[in-house]
């Protein structure tokens, strides 16, 4: 059996891409000198499975995730990432809760749910890559707002408010983070990272300072705290803020990002 270096799933000998996450199995892992691993670049038309459904990734510059849904399966997503669907695929809405707080945070009140059988496809409108994160029961993942593309229905969706006034005002990661939790069954979560995506696993207590706009996802065990750096960024501007990540757990970053606090 071949173990996938990205999601650790076992694959039959002779397979060239992981059946669980689509990562190429015949390429060396790309890890930088300081330990950042590139998210696997999914080859055009790569397929992988989750539950009874299949996901095929199309394109490489702004990739599309095309899902063939099994009759018993469903996925949910923010409605503006829907690219196309079979006419027969029913759509419904799921209230995320949070009411006005979500409005203030610029987050959707409702996510859209699509149920099988049928085909449906998703993409976000920026050059980047799809990050496939199979989630096993008990896993909790925090994701930057508006970075999640689609998730299978066995994953619970909630959100956590980013705590602390300094984090809110200067953190640059928004007001809320999406939190994805798996309890009874494994699930599949797809993110869209702008530019290239890199992941690093922090040891307990290990720290790394990340540009807040570059933050993409983290295990919920990783603590995130805005830290003021002793740097000027303009004539009257003092204090550039970076997000201090403290392990243990995984941190994912994107190389193209939006600046919220520096002109």
């Amino acid at each position: 059996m071949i173990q996938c270096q990205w999601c650790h799933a076992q694959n039959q000998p002779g397979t060239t891409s992981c059946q669980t996450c689509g990562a190429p199995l015949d390429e060396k892992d790309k890890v930088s000198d300081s330990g950042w691993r590139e998210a696997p670049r999914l080859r055009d038309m790569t397929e992988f499975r989750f539950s009874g459904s299949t996901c095929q990734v199309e394109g490489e510059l702004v990739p599309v995730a095309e899902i063939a849904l099994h009759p018993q399966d469903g996925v949910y997503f923010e409605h503006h990432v829907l690219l196309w669907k079979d006419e027969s695929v029913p759509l419904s809405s799921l209230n995320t809760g949070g009411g006005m707080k979500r409005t203030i945070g610029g987050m959707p009140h409702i996510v859209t749910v699509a149920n099988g059988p049928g085909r449906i496809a998703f993409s976000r409108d920026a050059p980047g890559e799809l990050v496939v994160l199979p989630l096993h029961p008990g896993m909790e993942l925090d994701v930057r707002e508006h970075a999640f593309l689609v998730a299978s229905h066995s994953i619970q969706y909630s959100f956590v408010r980013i705590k602390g006034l300094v984090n809110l005002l200067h953190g640059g990661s928004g007001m809320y983070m999406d939190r994805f939790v798996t309890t009874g069954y494994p699930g599949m979560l797809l993110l869209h990272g702008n530019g290239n995506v890199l992941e690093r696993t922090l040891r307990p207590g290990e720290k790394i300072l990340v540009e807040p706009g570059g933050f993409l996802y983290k295990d919920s065990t990783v603590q995130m705290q805005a830290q003021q750096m002793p740097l000027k960024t303009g004539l009257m501007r003092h204090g550039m803020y970076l997000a201090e990540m403290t392990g243990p757990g995984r941190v994912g970053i994107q190389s193209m990002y939006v600046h919220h606090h520096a002109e």
Partner: protein
Amino acid sequence: MNTYICRYCRQPSDPNSPTCPMCGAPVDIRSVVSDSGWVAQPPIKDMARIQFGQSHVQIAGTTVPTAEFTLAPDDWIYFSHHVLLWTEPQTRLTNMPMRGAWNRKMAGMPLVMVEGRGPGHIALSDNHAGEVVALPLQHNQQIWVREHRFLTATGNVRYDWHPTGIWYTTGSGDDQETHYPMGQYGDVFGAQGGPGLLLLHSPGNTFIRDLRHGQSLLIQPSALLYRDVTVRMALHLEYPRNMGFAFWHSRWSYRSIWVRLFGPGRVAVQSVYAPPEDTEMISSHSYATTHHW
């Protein structure tokens, strides 16, 4: 004795390495040259390393590549805070003061630079899909770079900035507006006291060309990435022939605003650019050649 010269960075290099240790360009590929003589700059290979001093930089990614530095204790780099992606806590970050703060602010250029000093790791990236271009500089070698394309440079690379001298005005009276199609200022970098390394971020793809003495070339002003300081430039205005439409169409709406480059020297262009606005008649301009068809 090593006689291999990298065809992209023009520095003595190692032919046995898969990538040039000075600029990261692949060694084992054929040069791709267009019929008109533009050489496609190959993207730096994923995870390629470029050596400088006791330190090195590793390029990771291909869509929006990151430059990850492993800095030795005595080595340092400087950059605009906009491009910082991540840093280890032990890497020392301090401000590098810049002269001419008011002029820089007026021109939309970064007012302060950040110095990152080793030992430690630090990574930088820009916000555009494109390529990182590495320019190793020999002692006293200078290069001109269009504004906002600078990613980082090693500590021994001196940074200076000068007016581009390329401008035109539109409107009159209180409505007069001055336009700088390639920016008000250009950056000039020069290595001092030894070789240095300059990294640029080029949106889209990058092409380089050598101009002979006296040879000239017209390009979109915002497409110029860098040029040797021996290459001169001037504005060129081109108006199409009036084909019976209202006269003002050829006076301003359909004009082309170019920069004419004069050799000798090397020039590089990026394939992503923003054409100048072309809605009003030009009332005055810097030195320019003009052509009416």
